[in-house]
C-alpha cells in the first residue's frame, strides 16, 4: 500500500508567514496526483516535505499506514525527479542509476538487471557509459527518471520535471510519464505550474495558492466547475473572459443575463435569489462567431493570433479584452465587427465580492 496521508501540514520559514498552511490531503494508492499552482505557492515545499528533505514545522505525513515524519528520506520508499535533473556530474549514466542501489546493498547482478530494464524502457541503453555533460536536456531527464525507477519506489515525486525542456520534447516526455505511471503501478505526485501538464497527467489535480489548496478534483471537475476565479483563470489557457452579469429568475428558471444576452443555467433557483450581481466566466472555446444579431454580443477585432490550426480572436467588448477561440478557417481584419454567441451550458458564475463560484456556494 502506498497511499499518502497529509495531516495539517505546515511549513514556516519565518514566524509571521506560513509557506504551507495546515495542508491536509489523502492520496490514494497508485493515484497520479498533480500539485498545480503559480511559483512560490508552496507546491515544491510540500513535495520536499513528503520526500523528507524539507523539515516539517507542524503536521504529519503518512506513507501507507506508516507515520514517516521521523523517517530518513531513503527509508521512505520514495524517489524524486528534480527540475534540473540533479544528476551526479562525475558519474556515468550507469553509475548515476547504480548509486542508490549500491547504498541499499542491492546485489550487483540485480543492480545491472534493473538498470538495463529501466534504460531500455526509457531508451537510454546506448548512453549508459556517458557522463551527464555529454547528454542533451531530454536525455538527462530520462536518466533522472531512470534513476528513480531502478529504486522501485512506492511513490514517485516529480518536481517540475519537464520545465527545462523545449516544447516538443515536453510533449513527448509528458506522454511517456503517463505511460510510465500505467506501467509502474506506483503512486505519483507531480508538481507543475503548467495547466496542460496537469490536466493531461493527473487523475486528480490539487490547485494551490499561497500555501493552501484552492481546489482538489479530477481535471474534468476543475475545468467544469472551478471553485473560484483564481482557479478558473489558472486552469484556463487561453485566459478565461470575465464579464459582469446578473442572475435572473425567469418563471422559475435560472438565467445569466449579460447586458441583455441571456443564457440558461442549471443553477438552483435559490442561488439566483441570493446572488443577483455576479461575474460570468466564459472560456474562449465556449464562444462562437455568428451572423445572428439577437442574443449575441457585438464586438470589434483587435488582432488575431494563430495557434496551429486554431485562431484566437482578441476582441474588445465594452473597453476590455475578450478572447474567442475557433478553428482557423477564415481571416479577420482589425476593426471588423463580429457577433459572438455563448454556449449556454458552459458559463460559470462567480460572486462579485468573494470571487467564489456561485454554484459551489449553494
Amino acid at each position, binding site marked *: 500500500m502506498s497511499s499518502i496521508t497529509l495531516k495539517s501540514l505546515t511549513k514556516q520559514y519565518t514566524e509571521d508567514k506560513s509557506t504551507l498552511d495546515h495542508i491536509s490531503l489523502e492520496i490514494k494508492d497508485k493515484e497520479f496526483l498533480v500539485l498545480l499552482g503559480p511559483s512560490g505557492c508552496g507546491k515544491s515545499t510540500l513535495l*520536499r516535505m513528503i*520526500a*523528507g*528533505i524539507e523539515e516539517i514545522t507542524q503536521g504529519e505525513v503518512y506513507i501507507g499506514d506508516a507515520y514517516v515524519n521521523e523517517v*530518513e*528520506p*531513503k527509508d521512505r520508499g*520514495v*524517489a*524524486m525527479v*528534480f*527540475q*534540473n*535533473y*540533479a*544528476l*551526479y*556530474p*562525475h*558519474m556515468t549514466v550507469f553509475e548515476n542509476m547504480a*548509486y*542508490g542501489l549500491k*547504498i*541499499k546493498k542491492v546485489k550487483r547482478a540485480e543492480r545491472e538487471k534493473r538498470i538495463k530494464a529501466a534504460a531500455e524502457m526509457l531508451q537510454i541503453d546506448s548512453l549508459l557509459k556517458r557522463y551527464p555533460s555529454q547528454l542533451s536536456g531530454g536525455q538527462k531527464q530520462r536518466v533522472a527518471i531512470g*534513476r528513480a525507477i531502478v*529504486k522501485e519506489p512506492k511513490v514517485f515525486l516529480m518536481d517540475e520535471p519537464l520545465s527545462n525542456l523545449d516544447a516538443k520534447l515536453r510533449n513527448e516526455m509528458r506522454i511517456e510519464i503517463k505511460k510510465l505511471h500505467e506501467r509502474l503501478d506506483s503512486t505519483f505526485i507531480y508538481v507543475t505550474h503548467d495547466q496542460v501538464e496537469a490536466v493531461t497527467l493527473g487523475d486528480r489535480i490539487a490547485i494551490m495558492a499561497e500555501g493552501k489548496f484552492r481546489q482538489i478534483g479530477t481535471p474534468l471537475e476543475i475545468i467544469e466547475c472551478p471553485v473560484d476565479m483564481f482557479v478558473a483563470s489558472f486552469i484556463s489557457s487561453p485566459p478565461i473572459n470575465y464579464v459582469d452579469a446578473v442572475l435572473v429568475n425567469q418563471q422559475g428558471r435560472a438565467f445569466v443575463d449579460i447586458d441583455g444576452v441571456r443564457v440558461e443555467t442549471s443553477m438552483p433557483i435559490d442561488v439566483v435569489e441570493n446572488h443577483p450581481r455576479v461575474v460570468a466566466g466564459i472560456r474562449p472555446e465556449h464562444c462562437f462567431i455568428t451572423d445572428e444579431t439577437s442574443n449575441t454580443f457585438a464586438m470589434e477585432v483587435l488582432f488575431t493570433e494563430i495557434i496551429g490550426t486554431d485562431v484566437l480572436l482578441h476582441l474588445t467588448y465594452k473597453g476590455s479584452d475578450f478572447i474567442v477561440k475557433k478553428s482557423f478557417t477564415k481571416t479577420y481584419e482589425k476593426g471588423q465587427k463580429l457577433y459572438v454567441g455563448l454556449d449556454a451550458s458552459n458559463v460559470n458564475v462567480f460572486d462579485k465580492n468573494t470571487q467564489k463560484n456561485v454554484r459551489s456556494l449553494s
Partner: protein
Amino acid sequence: MSLAKVKTGIRYAMLALISALMVFPFIWMFLISIKPKNEIYSGSILPSAFHFENYLRVFTDTKMLLYLWNSIYVSLIIIAFQIITAIFAAYVFTVMRKKWVQFCFVLILATYMLPSAVTYIPSFILLSKVNLLDTHTGYILSEFISIFAIFFLRQSFMQVPKDVIDAAKLDGAGHLRLIFTVYIPYCKNAIASLVLITFIYSYNNYMWPSLLIKSEENMFVTIGLRRLFMSQAGYGMDFPLAMAACAISLLPMLILLAMASKRIIHSMANLYVNK
C-alpha cells in the same frame, strides 16, 4: 589590418612583456648558477664557459638534499592534515545553517584577519611547554589547520547544487558518503588547487620555521638557503653554488604545477569569475 586585430596584438604584446619580466629573474638565476665565480660581476649575460658542476656541488658540498627532503615530507604531511580537516570543517559550515554554527564560522574567519606575526610568541610558548620546539612535529602541529583552506573549500562546496545533495540524500547517502562521493568529486579542481597553494605556502614558509627550527638536521629549504648565503658571507660568496641551490629548490614546485595546472586554472576561473 582591422581594429580588433590591433587590439589583440597589443594585448599579446603586453602579456609577453609581463611574462618576460616575471621570467627574467629565473633566467638570471640559472645563468649565474652556471657561470664561473669571477664572471658574476662582469656584466656579461652569457657565461664564457658552462659550469654545470655547480649543480653537483649542491649535493656534495651542502646539505641541500636533506633540507629538500625535510621540506617536502613535512609539507606533504601538512597538506594532508590541512585538507582533511578543511574538508570536514567546510562540510559542516556548508550544510549546517544553524545560527550558532555560522557564528563559529565568522569567528574562525575573524582569527584569519590576525597578522600571523602576532601568533608567533604564544605559539612558541605553547610548543615550548610541550617540548616540541625544534621538531617537525611541533611545526606540523602548528600548521595543522588552515583557515584559508576551510574558507576556500566552503566556497567551492557551496557551488554544489542543492538538488544534487538532496538527490544523494534520497539515494541514502549519509554525511561521510555525501562528502566522499559527492562533495569531493564535485570539487576536485578546487581541492587540487588548494593542494598546490598549501604546498607553496608551506614549502615557502620562512619566518615561523626559522624561529622554531634550530638544529641542522631539521632544517627546511628556506632556512637552508639562507644559511648557505650567510655561512659564506665572510670570505666572498659562492653565488653560482647558491643560485644552483635556489634553482634546485624550485623543482618540486615546478613539477607540482605541471601536474596540476589545468585543474588550478579551472578552479580559479570557477571561483572568481561570475558565471
